[in-house]
C-alpha cells in the first residue's frame, strides 16, 4: 500500500460514520433516517491523498442502493466531506454490511502500518484507538444490529426448548462424526480396517523407525519415501502400519484412490484377468491408483507372470508419483525367488525392519488393543499376558477371548481367568511345524547361507556354531526329537552338547532381540513348508 493512498480501519470508518450520522439525523426525518441511513452504513473509506477520498456505502438491497444514490447522495457526501476534510467520492455497494466489515477486518491485519500514517489526520482523535484496533471488529458491528454470524463455525440456531431438544445438524460433533463415518465407509470399501490407525499403534524402539516412515508417507504420499518396504516377523505390526497409512491418507483427502490388496489377492486377480482376457481392466485399475498398498508381497515371488505384471505396474505408478507401500515377512534380498529387477526396485526405496515387540511394547500393545476393545485389563495382568505371548496377533486373540468370557459368561477379569485363557491360547496358537529333521537343517543352512554339510560337520567357526545350535534347538523344541537322536544328525555329537546348545539358544533369545527374530523367522518359514 502506498503512503499516499490508505484504507482506514474498521474502527476509524465507524467513527467517521457515527459523526456523519449525527449530522444526517438532524437533517432528515426519523423515518427517512432509519430507513435510508441506518441500514446503509459506510463500510470502507480510502484516503487517496490529502484532498480526495473514496467512500463505500453498503446497502442491503438494490432498492436501498438505487434510491440512496438518487435521493440522498448529496446529503451523505456533504456529511462525509465535512468529517474527513476531503472530497469524497461515494461508491454504492450491495451486500451484508457485517460481511463487508469482516472483509475489512481481514485485510486490516495485513496493513496495520497504514493506520499509523493517518492517525493524525482524523479529528477528533479517536478514543482508545489502539485498543479498539487490537480487538476484532466484532463488537463494533453489533451497533448495526447485525451480529456477525457465528454461524461460520457452528450453525446452531437459538432453540428455546430446554430439554429434551433436537440436536444441531451442523454442530461440530455432527460434522466430525459424519466425517468419521464417511472416512470409515471409504476405508471399508478399500478394504482397510478402520481400527488400524496410527492412534492405536503402540510405538517403541523396535518399530519407531517404521512408525515414523509410515507417518511421513501417509502425510505426503508419493513424495516422502517411495516405495516404502516394511518387513518383519509375524505380528510385529506391518499390516497395522499399512492400514494406518491408508486410513490416514483417506482422512487427509477422501478423494485419493487407494488400492489395498494382499500379495495373494493380487496374484489371484492377475490370474483371473488373464484367464478372462481382461488384462486391460486390471491394468487400468491398478495403474490409476494414487496409493498402492500390497501386504505380504513375498507371495508373488517365484510366480513369473505375476512378477512381470507387478513390475510394470510398479514402474507405471512410480513414474506418476503414486505412493507404493509393501510389506513382507523378510527383506527383499532374502526373497530367493524374487526377480532381480524387482528386488533392486524394492531396495531402491526405504526398507524398514520391524523387530519383534519387546516385553514393554507387548504390554503397551495389549493395553492399547484392550482399550479399543473396551476391555479393562489391569496393568499387572497385562504384564502377565505380555510375558507369555510373543506376537501382537496373539495378543489380539487373547483380548477377544477375554472379552467373550466377560461379555458372554459375565466373568470378571481375574488372574485366574487370564491364566486359564493363556493356557488354552498358547498351546493352541503355536505355529505347528511338521517337517523332517533334514528340512530343518536345510532351512537353517539357507537362512544363514551356509552349506548343510558344514552345519552337520565338526568345524567350529562362530557363524557355523550359531546356525548349528539353532538347528539343534528347533529339532528339540519343535520336533521334540530326543537329544541323542539330534546328536546323531550332527556328526554323532553327545546329548549333553545338544542340551547345552538348546539352553544357550533359549538364553540368547531372551537377551538378543535380533536373534529372537531370526529364530521366529525360521519358524515361520518352517511352518510355511509344513504339511
Amino acid at each position, binding site marked *: 500500500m502506498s503512503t499516499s493512498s490508505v484504507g482506514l480501519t474498521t474502527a476509524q470508518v465507524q467513527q467517521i460514520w457515527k459523526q456523519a450520522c449525527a449530522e444526517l439525523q438532524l437533517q432528515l426525518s426519523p*423515518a*427517512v433516517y*432509519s*430507513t*435510508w441511513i441506518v441500514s446503509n452504513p459506510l463500510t470502507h473509506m480510502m484516503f487517496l491523498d490529502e484532498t480526495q477520498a473514496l467512500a463505500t456505502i453498503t446497502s*442491503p*438491497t*438494490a*432498492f*436501498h*442502493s*438505487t*434510491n440512496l444514490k*438518487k435521493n440522498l447522495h448529496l446529503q451523505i457526501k456533504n456529511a462525509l466531506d465535512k468529517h474527513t476534510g476531503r472530497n469524497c467520492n461515494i461508491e454504492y455497494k*450491495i*451486500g*451484508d454490511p457485517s*460481511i463487508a466489515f469482516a472483509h475489512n477486518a481481514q485485510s486490516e491485519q495485513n496493513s496495520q502500518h497504514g493506520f499509523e500514517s493517518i492517525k493524525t489526520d482524523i479529528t477528533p482523535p479517536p478514543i482508545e484507538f489502539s485498543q479498539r484496533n487490537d480487538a476484532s471488529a466484532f463488537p463494533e458491528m453489533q451497533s448495526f444490529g*447485525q*451480529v456477525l*454470524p457465528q*454461524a*461460520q463455525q457452528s*450453525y*446452531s*440456531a*437459538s*432453540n428455546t*426448548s430446554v*430439554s*429434551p*431438544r*433436537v*440436536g*444441531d*445438524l*451442523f454442530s461440530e460433533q*455432527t*460434522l466430525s*462424526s*459424519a*466425517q468419521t*463415518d*464417511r472416512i*470409515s*465407509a471409504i476405508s471399508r470399501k478399500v478394504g482397510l480396517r478402520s481400527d488400524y490407525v496410527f492412534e492405536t499403534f503402540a510405538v517403541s524402539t523396535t518399530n519407531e523407525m517404521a512408525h515414523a516412515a509410515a507417518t511421513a508417507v501417509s502425510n505426503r504420499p508419493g513424495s516422502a519415501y517411495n516405495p516404502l518396504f516394511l518387513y518383519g516377523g509375524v505380528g510385529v505390526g506391518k499390516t497395522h502400519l499399512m492400514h494406518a497409512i491408508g486410513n490416514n491418507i483417506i482422512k487427509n483427502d477422501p478423494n485419493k484412490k487407494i488400492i489395498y490388496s494382499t500379495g495373494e489377492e493380487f496374484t489371484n486377480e492377475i490370474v483371473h484377468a488373464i484367464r478372462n482376457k481382461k488384462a486391460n481392466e486390471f491394468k487400468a485399475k491398478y495403474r490409476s491408483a494414487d496409493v498402492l498398498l500390497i501386504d505380504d508381497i513375498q507371495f508373488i515371488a517365484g510366480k513369473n507372470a505375476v512378477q512381470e505384471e507387478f513390475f510394470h505396474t510398479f514402474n507405471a505408478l512410480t513414474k506418476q508419483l503414486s505412493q507404493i507401500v509393501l510389506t513382507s515377512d523378510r527383506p527383499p534380498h532374502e526373497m530367493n525367488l524374487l526377480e532381480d529387477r524387482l528386488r533392486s526396485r524394492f531396495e531402491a526405496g526405504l526398507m524398514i525392519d520391524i523387530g519383534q515387540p519387546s516385553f514393554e511394547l507387548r504390554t503397551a500393545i495389549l493395553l492399547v488393543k484392550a482399550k479399543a476393545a473396551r476391555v479393562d485389563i489391569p496393568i499387572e495382568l497385562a504384564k502377565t499376558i505380555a510375558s507369555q505371548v510373543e506376537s501382537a496377533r496373539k495378543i489380539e486373540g487373547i483380548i477377544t477371548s477375554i472379552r467373550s468370557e466377560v461379555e458372554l459368561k459375565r466373568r470378571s477379569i481375574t488372574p485366574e481367568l487370564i491364566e486359564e485363557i493363556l493356557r488354552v491360547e498358547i498351546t493352541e496358537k503355536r505355529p505347528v511345524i511338521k517337517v523332517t529333521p533334514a528340512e530343518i537343517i536345510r532351512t537353517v543352512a539357507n537362512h544363514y547361507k551356509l552349506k548343510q554339510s558344514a552345519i552337520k560337520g565338526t568345524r567350529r567357526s562362530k557363524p557355523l556354531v550359531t546356525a548349528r545350535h539353532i538347528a539343534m534347538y528347533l529339532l528339540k523344541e519343535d520336533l521334540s526329537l530326543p537329544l541323542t537322536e539330534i546328536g546323531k544328525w550332527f556328526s554323532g555329537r553327545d546329548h549333553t552338547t545338544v542340551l547345552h546348545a538348546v539352553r544357550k539358544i533359549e538364553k540368547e533369545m531372551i537377551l538378543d532381540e535380533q536373534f529372537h527374530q531370526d529364530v521366529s523367522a525360521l519358524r515361520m518359514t518352517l511352518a510355511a513348508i509344513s504339511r
Partner: protein
Amino acid sequence: MKTHVLQENLQRGLTYLAKAIPSNPQLPVLSSVLFEATKSGVIISATDLYFGVRVHLQASVDTEGTIVIPGKQLKELISSLPNGKLTLEYSEGTLQIKSEKTKTKLQCQSAEDYPQFPQVEGETYTFSSEELQAIDKFVGFSTSTDQARPVLTSILFEPTEKGLMTVSTDGFRLSTYKVSKNVKGDAEKLLLQAKALQEVNRIVKQVEETEISFIVSQELKQVYFSIGDVEIYMRLIEGEYPPYEKIIPTIFTTEVEFQASELDDNIKRAMIFARDSSNIIRFAITEEGVEISATSPSLGTYTGQIAGSKVSGKHLEIAFNAKYVQDILKAVQSETVWMGMSESLKPVLCRPSDFPAAEYVIMPFKVNE
C-alpha cells in the same frame, strides 16, 4: 391523471402485490401502492425494499400521471366493489374512484417519496413452472424463519456435476432435491429466500405461465422475475451456506422401510399426545417391526405398531420431532419411505422410495431416558 380500469383486473393485480405491501413500515410511504398511468397502460407496484412486485394492468388512460395510494384501504375497497369498469381520477392530493354506483375519495401522498425500483441486469435462468413448484414442494418447507440468519431462510441452488441441487435447512433438518436439469458449467450458486420463492410460485399458478425466467444480478444482489404481466424483485441472499453435503449420513446400522400411509396415520394419532411435549414421538425399532409411541404428561400415551415396516440391522430406539417426519411425508407423497439410522443421536437419512431425487436428513431428539 385519469384512467379507466376493470375492477377484476385491478383486484387481481392487488392480490399479486399483497405480500409486497408491508403493514407497518418505518417509511410510511411503503404501505402505499405506486400507481403509474402511462399511454401504454397502468402499472401498480409495491415493495418493502426487500421484496417488490410490479403488475401491468390493461387500462385506458385519458391523462397520464403517477400517484401513491394507501395500500390497505385500496385493496379493501377494490375487493368489495362489484365487477365492472372503474374510473380513477386524481387531482390535488385526492384520488376519486368511481364505480357504477359508488364514489370514493382517498387522500394520497406525493409519488416523489416512493422508492424507485432497481434496474436488474445479469444472467438469465429459466425453469419450467413445474420445476419451480417442485423445488418449493420438496425443499421449501424446511427453511428457517429466523431473519437474523438469512442464509437459512433461503433455498440453495447449487449447480453440480449431477445436475442442479436445491437444498434447504433450518439447522435441525435438511432437504435436498435434485432437479433433472442441465446447468451451465460456470453457473454460480444462488441463495433465494424461500418465502419470496413461494410468492413467485403462488403468482405463477395464477398467471399460468409454463416457463419462468429470472435474471440474477450478482452486483446488485438482486433477482428479477418476469412472469407474464407480473414482475417480481427479490434479493439474492449473501453468505456461506452450511456444509450440507458433509452431514448427509453414509453409514447405517438400522434401516427401515415404512408404508407411508401407515406411518402417517400413526404419527397423526401420536401427535394428539406429542403436541404437549415438543412433538416428540419415539420409535422402538426391533426385528419384529417398529413401535411408535408418544406421551403427554397430562393426557396419556399412545402406542402403535406401524404395519408393513421392513426392518434390517440392529434394533434402535430413537425419537423425532413428529412434524419433521410429517412434513417429509406430505412433501413426497411416496408409497414407501426409507429411513437409514445409525445411533439414537446421529442424523437420520430419509428417502422416498418412489422418488430418488429428494433426500432428507433429520436430527433426532435428545431424550432423557
